[in-house]
């Protein structure tokens, strides 16, 4: 039954598109044409920061990986959140020190703060691109109140199209790709903007930027 519905639908489409053969649509997939990309009038980093903040996110910079735990501690202290983290297993090699209590794995909704790595960041829109996997649970991106994302400065790309090129190198798309721009928000009640609808109330980026 389902099969015949499939054949009938495709048959009806074919009856219309059949006359337009000639060009090979498969080419658009194997060699995607260059599409218009909005010009970015500044350097990538200032653009990324500007757009991230426009979307409601915040950012701080550290010069090396060793500086990450202290920076997270400072941020949580300033925001009055406890120094307890749920981290993506991909971040196991960071030595967190004594100030932070860190556990690893996906979230069941009981965590206030999560820390995850980014796959890359996109300057055009101030977005972070995160992918699911064994070491990077998607639940960490949505369930905690505060989401902290670690970005390496060489992960900063201009446009989403650059991110897709990088994603294609993986061979197969991961199950979930999240492009995240700012914290969760809603304007569903009287068009009034409210931060923290279902997802994180805060999105903070720590950029590792060797001088």
């Amino acid at each position, binding site marked *: 039954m389902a099969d015949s519905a499939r054949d009938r639908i495709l048959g009806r489409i074919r009856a219309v598109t059949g006359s337009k053969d000639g060009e090979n649509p498969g080419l658009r997939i194997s060699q995607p044409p260059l599409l218009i990309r909005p010009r970015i009038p500044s350097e990538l980093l200032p653009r990324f920061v500007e757009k991230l903040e426009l979307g409601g996110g915040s950012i701080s910079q550290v010069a090396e990986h060793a500086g990450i735990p202290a920076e997270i501690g400072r941020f949580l202290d300033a925001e009055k959140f406890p120094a307890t983290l749920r981290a993506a297993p991909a971040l196991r090699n960071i030595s967190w020190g004594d100030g932070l209590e860190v556990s690893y794995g996906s979230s069941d909704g009981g965590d206030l703060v999560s820390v995850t790595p980014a796959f890359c960041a996109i300057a055009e829109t101030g977005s972070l691109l995160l992918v699911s996997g064994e070491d990077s649970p998607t639940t960490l991106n949505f369930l905690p109140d505060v989401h902290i994302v670690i970005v390496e400065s060489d992960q900063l790309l201009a446009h989403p199209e650059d991110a897709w090129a990088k994603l294609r190198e993986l061979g197969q798309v991961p199950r979930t790709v*999240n492009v995240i721009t700012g914290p969760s928000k809603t304007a*569903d009640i009287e068009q009034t903007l409210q931060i923290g609808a279902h*997802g994180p109330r805060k999105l903070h980026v720590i950029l590792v930027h060797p001088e």
Partner: protein
Amino acid sequence: MQSQSHRFKQNVSVALEDVSLQKALSRVQEGFVDKRAAVVSTLPEFEQLREQGREIRNHVLDHLDFYLRRFENRVQALGGQVHWAENAEQARDIVRDICRRVEAKTVIKGKSMISEEIALNEALELDGLDVVESDLGEYILQLAQEPPSHIIAPAIHKTRAQISELFYNAHQKLGYTKKLDTVPDLVNEAREVLRSRYLEADVGITGANFLVAETGSNIIVTNEGNGDLSCTLPRVHIVTASIDKVVPTLDDASALLRLLARSATGQEITSYTTFSSGPKRAGDADGPDEYHVVLLDNGRTEMLAGAFRDMLRCIRCGACMNHCPVYGAIGGHSHRWGYPGPIGSVLTPNFLGLEEAGDLANACTLNGHCASVCPVKIPLPDLLREHRRRQFERKLQPLPARLALAAWAGIARRPWIYQPLMATGIGMLRLLSRGRGKFKSLPMLGAWTRTRDLPAPQSRTFQTLWKKQRGKR
């Protein structure tokens, strides 16, 4: 949902007198129209992007079977399943069968217009399932038992006080006994209540803003993160999408996403753009065990073959509706069926028939705002005119309207009658309006002037002025 499109006229009179609705509609201007204008003005490439968007969508329609088969092939390669539905009933049955097989009790839903189109919630509830809408606006409407009035902000017609009352009644049994009156408090309570519903849901159902043939992914965009949780937490993820949603590549999707957020909410991008491809992989820390895509035709292949093909380019941004003066006056509920505003006026007669939904096209003033903002350049007024032409042809308009139009056509085609008649008529109307510039009411036209003022003619007929003007040269 039972369509009420045939009751359009009655619904309009109710809408025009609904004070809180009128207040809510005035927010569309600020919240959507002004914000869109601002964000578009900062992107010099916007007009080029619209043209490119039109081309991408046309290219897809020219090769729709190729891209759908390619999409299906990729989803299957990743371990997901694709189901094809010719109509609403088949689509409902596919989803019901999956829910039954996995012994689901609770279903959490991201926003999906296709779900509205096929009246999915009602069907699942009849099967005894607990169905929860997770988009805040949709959740509010579910409590109010009303259909959406706006495709981007479905509960735009609801006031804070009304929402407070709804929450108070629904959440008391969960231990929330205070009546809330601020927006942050209301949002927080909904967040808490819905959080537990996500975690206990067996099946998550979302729509798709796009389907990507290259990768076999479905894309959803949200600001709340609700749809994103709906496709991550439950053990089964079902995507309901229409066949026109497919795009060739990730690059094409990005090109269209640039148009979508700006046109829809006046944002450069929403908080979340989520790509889901198949079920979770071996070793993945989280994600669903099953991934299904239901591809719905429901009249679209017919549109592809006919005069309404351009409409299939639509990316459901809602800009046409936000810029529509008729929508601005009466809101979306007068349409009473899934798609409000100009898109609804074009689509609904295609899905339900002209007999049921023809009035929608007749409410249009053909002012053209909608087409001028449409990010994929759909000639909406032309399509609406086509509905009217067909109605006239099939004699579906009321007899007086048809007679009047026929008489008008008869006179207008005969200048020797038309010109003197207009000159006399206009002179008389000017005298009658006594310089006030408009008529609050007119004899025999009470039904028309009850909700409108008829502007009094400015001076003489165009022909008279034209002749005079030429005489001067």
